[in-house]
């Protein structure tokens, strides 16, 4: 049997139920406003920045800024305990984080042997409802805000990552595939002892 992560997926799933309870406090709201607002932002950025690459960068930056704030809300409300390794971290993002904020879950797959690179597969995603890209936007990574959010949130819990879209349904792929690559784990330095 292959070595398994110390905590099984079941333990994480048990967490999801708890999150669903917490979810009530987060005031889930109809996604339409969110989806249309995001669409309007992308559209305005395309007008103002002109270059598709610049828009990709800006969306990523906005996501990053959101991620570094959202991690606090996540930690406060999810009740998730410290992840033992990157594998567990990826599962928590896929099953708890995405569920809590976006109402979706992802499958974690394509692990490399070192356990530092994997993919989140999303069948579906509230950012892209009603969206179709015109030919002039072929280079656009429409969901780039999401990769930024993940990168920002992980950086706040001491993980430097590179997050990239490998597959995108708006570009004709059969799913969304978000690759997470752990670059560096910054050891946390406490000014105090953890158990005090």
């Amino acid at each position, binding site marked *: 049997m292959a070595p398994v992560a110390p905590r099984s997926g079941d333990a994480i799933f048990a967490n999801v139920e708890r999150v669903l309870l917490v979810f009530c406090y*987060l005031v889930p709201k109809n996604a339409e*406003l969110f989806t249309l*607002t995001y669409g*309007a932002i992308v559209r305005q950025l395309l007008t103002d920045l002109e270059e598709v690459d610049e828009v990709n960068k800006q969306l990523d930056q906005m996501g990053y800024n*959101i991620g570094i704030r959202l991690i606090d809300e996540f930690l406060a409300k999810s009740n998730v305990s410290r992840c033992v390794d990157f594998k567990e971290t990826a599962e928590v993002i896929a099953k708890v984080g995405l569920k809590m904020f976006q109402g979706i879950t992802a499958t974690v797959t394509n692990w490399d042997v070192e356990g530092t690179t994997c993919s989140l597969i999303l069948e579906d995603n*509230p950012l892209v*409802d009603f969206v179709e890209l015109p030919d002039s936007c072929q280079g656009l990574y429409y969901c780039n805000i999401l990769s930024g959010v993940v990168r920002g949130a992980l950086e706040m819990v001491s993980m430097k990552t590179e997050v990239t879209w490998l597959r995108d349904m708006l570009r004709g792929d059969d799913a969304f595939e978000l690759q997470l690559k752990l670059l560096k784990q910054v050891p946390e330095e406490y000014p105090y002892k953890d158990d005090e």
Partner: protein
Amino acid sequence: MGREVSESCVESLLTEIVSSYCNGFYADKPELAARRIEAIGFQVGHQLSERYTMDRPRFTDHLEAIKFICKDFWSEVFKKQIDNLKTNHRGTFVLQDNRFRWLSRMSVDPSIETLGSIQDPSAMAENKAAQAIGMHLYFPCGIIRGALSNLGIPCAVSADISNLPACSFVIRIKA
């Protein structure tokens, strides 16, 4: 469609729109930043009102359309209705939300309250905090203008926060 996202997602986007446009691209040009933020809101309001009115008969007059904004539209977007509606019966309507959601988590400098109506971004430039709040309000103002424009009612919308945490939106219908 039953899809739901957490409310913090929408609020996060709003924060980022304002900071990208005010601190990033148009740091020295608050008027331009304001116009862009309003334009994003306009687009959203236009599309939302299209969706929310799909199964309705056409509104017969302005008041009916404004009431729709106060009740159904506001409930969909903010989970509550507008608390008070006033009109001078000559095309001006004042919609007051006693606890406007998008301001409820912002810290507010009490000295701003004397500033009252926020309409002119250049006048706000001196007071950074007032400017920040004002910039956040261009988005909902745009949403209302977009929604009404989709219903065939061209208008101008401004916001008044002289009674925080209440927020009033002043709609002036163009004759």
